[in-house]
């Protein structure tokens, strides 16, 4: 019997990503739930703050990222819960694939899901809060992608930890929220600049900060993740 050759890290990651996306596409349960959850979050912000349209418009970027953040804690916990059910994660680990491939696949999957969520939320926000996208679609998508990546990488590591622990619903936000404050701050500021114009030419600096944090989070997550899911 010939031993199967180990497949490359990135190929394995893309195979796993394809599997996760297929599951997601077949059910679409997660994305649907997330969209409704974050839509109601956006609505709640406008109710809680009263009819001050100006206030809503000025802070729209921050509210959008808070809605995405709250939704992300639900979605990332779920992405590992489906693996722990029926011990699927053990099966993945037994397959000749690297644990780091699992990290890449899960983190990319979570990023894509959050970007899709953000893409659905922005038109709603434009209508609901009356904001204008001053800088155009390109910077908007760049902000969304960079911010979601910065949320997804540490979120994936911590979700793998939290979904296996007691009180997992409390633990994930508790671990994740402080860690991603800098990234959230940068994303929210960048989004506000995209929506309101950029008088001081700061957008590229915020992108640089987001890029730096992405490198830190993805590098550390990639290096440490195998230890998280080992037995």
């Amino acid at each position, binding site marked *: 019997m010939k031993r199967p050759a180990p497949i490359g890290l990135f190929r394995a990651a893309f195979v796993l990503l394809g599997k996760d996306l297929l599951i997601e596409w077949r059910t679409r349960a997660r994305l649907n739930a997330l969209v409704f959850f974050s839509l109601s979050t956006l609505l709640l912000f406008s109710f809680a703050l009263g009819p001050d349209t100006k206030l809503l418009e000025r802070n729209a970027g921050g509210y959008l990222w808070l809605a995405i953040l709250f939704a992300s804690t639900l979605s990332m916990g779920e992405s590992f819960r489906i693996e722990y059910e029926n011990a699927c994660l053990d099966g993945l680990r037994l397959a000749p694939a690297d644990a780091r491939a699992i990290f890449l696949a899960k983190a990319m999957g979570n990023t894509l899901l959050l970007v899709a969520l953000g893409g659905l939320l922005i038109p709603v926000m434009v209508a609901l809060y009356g904001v204008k996208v001053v800088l155009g679609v390109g910077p908007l998508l760049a902000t969304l992608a960079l911010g979601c990546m910065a949320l997804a990488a540490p979120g994936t590591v911590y979700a793998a930890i939290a979904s296996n622990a007691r009180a997992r619903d409390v633990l994930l936000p508790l671990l994740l929220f402080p860690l991603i404050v800098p990234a959230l701050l940068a994303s929210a500021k960048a989004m506000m600049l995209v929506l309101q114009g950029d008088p001081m030419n700061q957008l590229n600096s*915020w992108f*640089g900060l987001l890029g730096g944090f992405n490198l830190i989070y993805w590098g550390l997550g990639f*290096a440490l993740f195998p230890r998280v899911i080992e037995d």
Partner: protein
Amino acid sequence: MTPVARNRLILVGALLVAGAGLAVVAFGKIGDNLVYYWSPAEMLGQGEKAYGPTIRLGGVVKPGSIQWNAEHTTLHFHVATDHTPGSASVLVRSTEVPPQMFRDGIGVVVEGTFDKSQVFASNRLMVNHSNEYRAPKPGEEPRKWQETVEGSTTASATGAQ
């Protein structure tokens, strides 16, 4: 290459990526632009784009520019970019009570909005202290320093006690 060596290499590579990220945050010239406060020269340089949004303005209090009206609780002063006499300055109208160290020439950060009237309306005033700590010079009495600074302030400060 053995799998162990390969894994080590991947690990080192990932850590290098993380270190590069930290270096970008540290030395990526990000700090020059994402500042906690703007100097008057930078703010005035933006022209009309600076009107409206809430910004923080930092600089030094221009000597001799403090006008403090205790009855109407308003405080007017000029914030200059630095200590050189001709540096750009902005008139600030503050509704906040200044801390005890507030005086001519000290660093301040004010939070508020700027508009066409060229007055910076501030509702939050912070004094920026340097990292210097010195004992009082002979003859100086820090516990009673308020009396030496400015007449109008002294009256209200001592009156409050």
